[in-house]
């Protein structure tokens, strides 16, 4: 997104919108280097001590691989659930007025503000077999705490704002008349949603869901208290990294972390590329 804005600022208008472009770009680059590139370089610096075979042995360790499966599986479920409910929440917040709307809107940011460990402990308290929710669900044979369902729940909790907050502004910019027009032209409610509204929301929804997914991959605090951490069953990748650090094995920790990083980067990049094409196609049709 920001790169596109830059491109417009650089290319199409000789007079730059930002005052002091050189200075602001310099500061941005310094900031990015300090906050993002330097720690990443540090991470890869730790990897330098490993041979390729050693690296491969660490990241394909049986138990670590089991943790990828748990983490990615739970994160995917959490992301899909968040996509559906996040879209609904954003819709409700934008299109309707109801008492307590401001409160609900503010509540959406709570997972960002709350220390994740607090969220994890609260969820574990609620969903363990003697908790409020756990007591109700257990007789139905549904165990949440200390299973991968609990992991997905914690992930979903910490990452829902990503979906809501990315879809919300796009919905706000979309005039009501658009779906009204669709309806007056004879589209059914569902067709109107599918053919008119969804295509406009699609890029934002996919970005939000992707961010939520990536966020879930790295989450530690909220999950660790509800996961149960049983080997091969409910161990998340972040715990594997934590274990390596406990062993003073910085290289091993960095190796596993690099896998998470690659997956996250690849996904974010893919979404960005896809989004660029999608938007081109959307506007290419009529302009």
């Amino acid at each position, binding site marked *: 997104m920001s790169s596109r804005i830059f491109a417009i600022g650089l290319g199409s208008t000789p007079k730059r919108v930002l005052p002091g472009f050189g200075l602001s770009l310099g500061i941005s680059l310094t900031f990015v280097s300090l906050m993002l590139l330097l720690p990443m370089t540090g991470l890869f610096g730790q990897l330098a001590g490993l041979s390729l075979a050693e690296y491969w042995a660490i990241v394909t360790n049986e138990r670590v691989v089991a943790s990828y499966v748990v983490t990615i599986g739970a994160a995917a479920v959490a992301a899909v659930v968040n996509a559906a409910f996040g879209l609904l929440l954003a819709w409700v917040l934008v299109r309707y007025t109801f008492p307590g709307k401001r409160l609900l809107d503010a509540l959406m940011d709570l997972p960002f503000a709350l220390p994740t460990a607090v969220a994890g402990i609260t969820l*574990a308290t609620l969903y363990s077999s003697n908790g409020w929710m756990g007591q109700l669900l257990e007789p139905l044979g549904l165990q949440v*705490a200390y299973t991968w369902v609990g992991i997905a729940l914690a992930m979903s909790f910490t990452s829902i704002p990503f979906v809501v907050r990315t879809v919300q502004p796009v919905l706000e910019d979309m005039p009501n008349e658009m779906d009204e027009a669709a309806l007056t032209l004879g589209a059914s409610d569902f067709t109107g949603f599918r053919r008119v509204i969804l295509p406009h929301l699609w890029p934002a929804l996919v970005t939000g869901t992707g961010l939520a997914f990536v966020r879930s991959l790295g989450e530690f605090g909220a999950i660790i208290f509800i996961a149960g*951490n049983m080997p*091969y069953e409910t161990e998340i990748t972040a715990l594997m990294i934590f*274990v390596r650090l*406990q062993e003073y*094995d910085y290289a091993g920790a960095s190796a596993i972390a690099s896998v998470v990083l690659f997956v996250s980067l690849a996904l974010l990049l893919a979404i960005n590329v896809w989004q660029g094409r999608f938007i081109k196609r959307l506007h290419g049709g009529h302009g």
Partner: protein
Amino acid sequence: MRLPSLRRTLIAAALGLGLAAPAMAAEREILNSSYDIARELFAAINPEFRNHWQAEHGEQIGIQQSHGGSSAQARAILQGLRADVVTYNQVTDVQVLADAGLVAEDWQEKLPNNASPYYSTTAFLVRKDNPKGIESWDDLVREDVRMVFPNPKTSGNGRYTYLAAWGFAQQQFDGDEEQIHDFMRTFLRNVAVFDTGGRGATTSFIERGLGDVLISFESEVNNIRQEYGTDDYEVIVPPVSILAEFPVAVVEPNAERNGNLDLAQAYLEYLYSEEAQRQLAGFNYRVHHETVVEEFADQFPETELLLVEDIAGSWEEAMETHFGSGGLLDQLQRRR
């Protein structure tokens, strides 16, 4: 008329602060890097040491505390935290500092009892009236028993529990490897949840009602029982368990740079004094001072304490063969 007087007061206050500040800066201060659950302990001991030092040397001193998982604490020092002394619950975490040259190579000989002013062992906390009749380690491998103890992969406390069970099995099966491994496999399978640290395991056992038994340091299970109700829980000290040392050491390069070498050394020596040992016993730690040992004899049942050295050779070997990646613990927990 009021305003000038107010201003005078303010100026006087500012001057007072200005005068007090250098005096405060001159006061020497040591930083004690310690393990997570020692907060209350050192909050009780530190004021006593301050008084003791003042009485002996007429000098006001300050003591800062830093608490966390002791491996994380040691890592912080490796990365430059200028702690003067360390008081940990794992020998390996002091050894890491010694290997990095931050603590004397022969640190275990610098103070009595392997530089461990107090010790503890691994014990059980069971629910009211001990419904499952748990008395020793072999009760824990029964089909109907579920237990909670922190993950040996992330917690020194958990490593002690694992090694104690191993030591028991070694005795029981006369060192027969296959039988020991079978015992340990069942033992590990009976774990309800693996929390990353001792406090997390306590929460799982007490608040969530998970498991029939919580395994932790004897000091910790006694403290938990005192906190959550002496009527609701019972402490069981098994007839065979493990010696858990609480090693201390001066971080010499740091103490020297901070000009605190004498103070740091005296602080650690003070932990061996009768007063400090009495306070430690009050926190349910086992101590060495004879008078205090006699005083608290009822509180600490006699039990055979196995040494880590006898169970696994040394801490270094235990970390490598048992707890390292691909080690025995990993093998025993492998899916089959």
